């Protein structure tokens, strides 16, 4: 049924002329019940989410639409997902003046692999066209310029051959362009 849902959604998007659908979602996975985007995903369980990703991506791409697995990775809360000025005004890039950085969501290697990376691995295995890097920082480094997550895990370990697309407005420095995206 999940596959069929992918097929029908895919045909709707295609008929509208869209080449890429920004989904399905396995991040946030659902670490915190109050997570603002949890509802866009499937389940806090990595295995079940992985199945949802695989079936949805297969369905979408079977009708010729590009899928985009997002948000990669550890985007478990929406609060302070973007950097901001001390007065609370949000900003999307990270200039050198005094700003409050995006929240850094930290996880060790085992947690990353067994829980959060798992459904993205299923997505890559299903042949997903693209992956969207997230607003937040992972272990201190912004999602869209994090070599460990984008190169080490996604492109090398998982062997992802598609492209990485940034979340809207996020590319914190020339680092992103130079090495990772």
């Amino acid at each position, binding site marked *: *049924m999940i596959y069929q849902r992918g097929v029908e959604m895919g045909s709707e998007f295609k008929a509208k002329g869209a080449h890429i659908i920004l989904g399905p979602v396995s991040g946030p996975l659902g670490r915190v019940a109050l997570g603002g985007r949890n509802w866009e995903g499937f389940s806090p369980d990595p295995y079940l989410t992985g199945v949802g990703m695989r079936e949805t991506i297969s369905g979408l791409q079977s009708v010729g639409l590009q899928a985009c697995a997002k948000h990669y990775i550890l985007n478990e809360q929406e609060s302070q997902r973007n950097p901001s000025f001390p007065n609370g005004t949000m900003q999307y890039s990270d200039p050198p003046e005094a700003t409050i950085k995006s929240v850094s969501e930290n996880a060790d290697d085992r947690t990353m692999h067994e829980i959060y990376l798992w459904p993205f691995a299923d997505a890559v295995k299903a042949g997903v066209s693209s992956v969207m890097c997230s607003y937040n920082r992972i272990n201190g480094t912004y999602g869209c310029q994090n070599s460990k997550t984008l190169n080490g895990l996604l492109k090398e370990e998982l062997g992802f051959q598609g492209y990485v697309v940034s979340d809207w407005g996020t590319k914190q420095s020339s680092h992103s*362009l130079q090495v990772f995206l």
Partner: protein
Amino acid sequence: MEMPGDTPNVTFAITNYWNGTIQEFRANGTLTSSRLDDMVLRSLTPYFYLGQDVAYPSVDPSSGDLNALYPPMYRYDFNLTGTRSRDVRDSHAGLIRALGAQSAVLLKNENGALPLKAPKNIGVFGSDAADSVNGQYGFQEEDIGTLPIGGGSGMLRQYLLQVMLD
């Protein structure tokens, strides 16, 4: 691939690095040609692999207008043609209804364990069961009524909404 693209006048996405930065980085050697080739290869492969270069539907012009970042805000001249506001719903309502039913968690009445022989009254509990008091997108904590969808890029307006109490 960097999004949302070349939007020089948008307050939040002003510093897009692609316009000019790529050339600068290539010139001073920061961006190697092999890295650039890799980026291009990765970005274009799905397009051709999925056959999007052959007989693909045009972009519905109304989609551009409905976007938060709509075509005039871009440096690129989007020439959107074809039928406007296409109805693409087809016969998908059947699957949507089936998915909703399959997603509900129910108790199985095995050996008549549940007291359901001849109920005089049935109580429905939970604020998600009723029609929304503050409208479908009130998003307030003390709300009574169903919350059909959350916020974020996946958010949309329902065409039809059936409430549990009904």
